[in-house]
């Protein structure tokens, strides 16, 4: 039996396929783009190909993320807030607090041992402190977003970036560059600025160990280091951090599929 989770985010669409034991057997990833339905179908096909199965072998699919209602193959929808909690506790069972930084929003989530959401806080109608902020900084530097973390880690003199606005940060960076500041120091400042905003969101839900960092931005080692420094604690981050929402959705899918099987067995017995 296989379950799938499809996370249609503002920037990327992700898919995870789990086998009956809850093991990840396939992943799919692409830019969301304008055609949400197509994106969700393609990531599912990708994940199934990796798993070596046909899409019809998937018993249950859950859609999550902003485009969750447009997942054509979805049997049900769950918000990514619940999915990130579920996924994070599955990968790191000690997780009680989650920081999820995605393309356009940042969430602080408090969870219990079962991966159920106890409380959450999000950024508001503004992309300050999200992945978009990092992408804007990378663009000004002429770097790919995957390169900026390692560059920032080389900094010896972290600069203070005072601007929190994703639009205006570009002119602040240009200003720093024109003053001859090193790009690693500027980027370290950018990372610190995001870590600072994340910290205040985390404080609003109350930080309890362990803290797990999810979402695409968690793949940036500079960001993980900045959050650890700011929070003065070790942060769990996984290679699969950007698949965390899809993983949580797939776990919900598997649970529901199994509940359905149990129900059918009971009906047969009854």
């Amino acid at each position, binding site marked *: 039996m296989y379950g799938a989770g499809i996370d249609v985010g503002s920037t990327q669409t992700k898919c995870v396929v789990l086998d009956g034991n809850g093991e990840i057997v396939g992943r799919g990833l692409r830019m969301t783009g304008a055609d949400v339905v197509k994106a969700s179908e393609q990531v599912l096909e990708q994940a199934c190909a990796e798993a070596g199965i046909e899409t019809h072998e998937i018993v249950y699919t859950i859609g999550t993320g*902003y485009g969750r209602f447009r997942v054509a193959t979805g049997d049900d*929808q*769950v*918000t*990514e*807030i*619940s999915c990130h909690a579920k996924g994070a506790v599955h990968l790191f069972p000690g997780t009680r607090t989650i920081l999820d930084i995605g393309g356009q*929003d940042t969430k602080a989530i408090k969870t219990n041992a*079962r991966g*159920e*959401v*106890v*409380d*959450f*806080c*999000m950024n*508001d*109608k503004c992309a300050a402190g999200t992945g978009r902020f990092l992408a804007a900084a990378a663009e000004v530097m002429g770097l790919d977003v995957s390169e900026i973390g390692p560059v920032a880690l080389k900094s010896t003199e972290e600069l203070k970036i005072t601007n929190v606005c994703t639009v205006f940060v570009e002119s602040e960076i240009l200003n720093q560059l024109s003053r001859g500041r090193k790009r690693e120091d500027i980027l370290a400042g950018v990372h610190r600025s995001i870590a600072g905003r994340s910290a205040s969101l985390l404080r*609003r839900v*109350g930080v309890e160990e362990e803290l797990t960092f999810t979402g695409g931005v968690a793949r940036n080692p500079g960001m993980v280091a900045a959050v650890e420094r700011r929070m003065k604690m070790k942060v769990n981050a996984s290679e699969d951090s950007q698949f965390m929402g899809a993983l949580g959705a797939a776990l919900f899918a598997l649970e529901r599929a199994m509940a359905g099987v149990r129900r059918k067995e009971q009906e047969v017995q009854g």
Partner: protein
Amino acid sequence: MNSPYQHQGSGQKIQKQLLTDWYRHLEQAPERGEKVAYLFISGNIGELLQACGFHLVYPEVNALQCGIKKVAGPNILAAEDIGYSGDVCGYVKNDIGLMLSGNRMPHGTTLPKPDLLVCNYAGCATYLRWFEALAEFYGAEMVVIDVPYLRGTEGPTAEEVRYVERQLRELVAVCERVAGREFDPAAYRQAIDRTVRSEDLWVQILESARHRPSPIDAYFEAVFFMAPIYTMRGTQGCLDYYQAVAKEVEERIQAGMGPVAEEKVRIVMEGPPAWPHFRKFWEMFKKWGAVTVASTYSKVGGIWDLGFRHDPDRPFESMAEYMLGCYTNRNWAMRSQLIRGYLEDYGADALVIHSVKSCRSFSVGQADLREQFIREFEVPTLFIESDLADPRYFAEAQMKNRIDAFFEALEHRRLTAGV
């Protein structure tokens, strides 16, 4: 098909008729040579001004009607065009925009100009500036009643009541001069008498939400039910209206009917609604079988369910007490206590705070309220944000996401409780 119910829908129907008649009558006031006073909803002194011969205009009610009829957006832009900042309250900008476009309401009536502006609640500095602007634009006289903010938790002191009462008596002299007629104390007393009876019925309607399932949504429906008691309190129409609503509610209780097909979650709501997206906003809660059993916004004009009533034997003094006790004039300890009481008395499962950008009187402190309820009282609390007038502040996908995540978690925790 004939409905088996006699009273269903009467609250909504009569309210609509009452307001239509109210606006028509108001529109014709200048032709009849009658005077018009503008005032605010919170702790309003409608009965007193009517006994002085004034017709009443509540700019906040106009703003919410423009919001719900989706014309607040253009009105707000018109105000911004003449220089009002993006940060100014959406109600104010709607009113300025409405004035600039000739005061024509979306339902077709034209609002008369004010002869007198009565700022009956000074706890919100924006109120003062709002009426100062109108006084300037219209060249009308303005009076401010200084209502001291409640500091303790015991309610207003005798000195505070006396202070406000004295100002009300001074106001009467101004009213007589502007209206060109004498204040009618007998009419005032009779109005207060009808007010008390309306207040009793209103409390009975609100408290019906203690039933399971609740026959009413004490937010999404109550914000409509509340209109007469805040705009035309003291009139016979208002009293008749609450008698009709009480029958409608009673019928629902008998039939076990409620605002949703199946009541699954009982919530308490804090904060004003998102008027420009009202239906959509409600649907986001209905979807989860969530019913509001108590709300603070339905008390925005006055609080009666804690026992206060106007008193025809002390019409000025009790009016002063009423003004001092209005919701936004209460400090946070009192507001928190009130909400906590609602959660317990109405058997609610969760608190939802809808914070609006426009109204600082409501919103400042709500983030702390959220923390207090989650950490100290361990009540599941959802915090969402948009606006009561400006449609631009409603981010549908984000709003829906938060509401879904909250109820999802609540439902899941219930399912696994005890596991």
